[in-house]
């Protein structure tokens, strides 16, 4: 199940930053590798919340998302039923 989540997240990121999914790994950094700026990171958080039907990702968590792996790990913590 978590693989499906990762795949869905990669698709979202690929579309947002206009790159091939294959170029995205968990080590991919949003700013350094994908050219994200601060506003596009806020946008990404909003997209993730919408895509995964989350109420909200707290700012203290969002501030620490630097890589795709960070985003995935945080996402899993907000989808608790999938971790069981």
């Amino acid at each position, binding site marked *: 199940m978590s693989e499906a989540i990762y795949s869905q997240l990669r698709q979202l990121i690929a579309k947002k930053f206009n790159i091939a999914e294959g170029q995205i790994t968990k080590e991919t950094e949003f700013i350094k590798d994908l050219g994200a700026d601060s506003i596009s990171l806020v946008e990404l958080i909003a997209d993730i919340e919408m895509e995964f039907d989350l109420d*909200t990702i707290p700012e203290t968590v969002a501030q620490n998302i630097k890589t795709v792996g960070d985003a995935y790990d945080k996402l899993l913590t907000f989808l608790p039923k999938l971790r069981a």
Partner: protein
Amino acid sequence: MNHRKTAFVTGASGGIGGACAVQLARQGYDVGVHYHGHRAGAEAVAAQIESLGARAWLVPFDITDHAQIERTMRAFIKERNGLEALVSAAGVVYNQMSGLTGVDNLDYQWAVNLRGAYLAAKIAAKAMLRAHWGRIVFIGSLVGQHGNAGQSAYAMVKAGLVGLAKSLARELAARRITVNVVAPGYIDTAMTRDLTEEIRQFILQQIPLHRAGSPEEVGALVGFLCGETADYITGAVFNIDGGMGA
């Protein structure tokens, strides 16, 4: 696709907020009508909106409560699948000399007028970022720029809206989201109707146009700023005051 735009107006049961909500409906927006306590006022505004062929939703919450703002506005935006305009008009004023203003009074004015506006704008902006388009208008006050004896706390928080709007304007400009302040002077609303005749006459003497403004005049300016043609206006403060601040 014929997508109707959605606006959300905080403090829409009040005179200025209500006039803004109705004006936006006139311009083709469906409108979330926020209120807290004054349901009859909100219902009257919603009825006017619906009489214009637009849709209206009554959305009650306490704007000093972060969790309520977050939960309710998010649910509204999700239900509407986006948000194109936010008018932040929720406001409260206590006329009191600073030496007589208690900290509870100060905190409440800050929580309603500024903190609530900040939180509502933050949630709205997130939805607008996804659409790469949006309009945010804060209802400030002329006293936020000129000050007023007996309104130091109110003037302070209304001035804060200017800094907030200018900062958000810079943050969000790249996504075609504009953020402005409309700063009314003396407007004929319930907030000002309680003044004594003596004070009213004194104020009118300070106004070059020698009359109070109407909520509808404020609504018209807000409506313009929420329209397509205001695309190049952001980070600005518009006084609507009959020349009082000139």
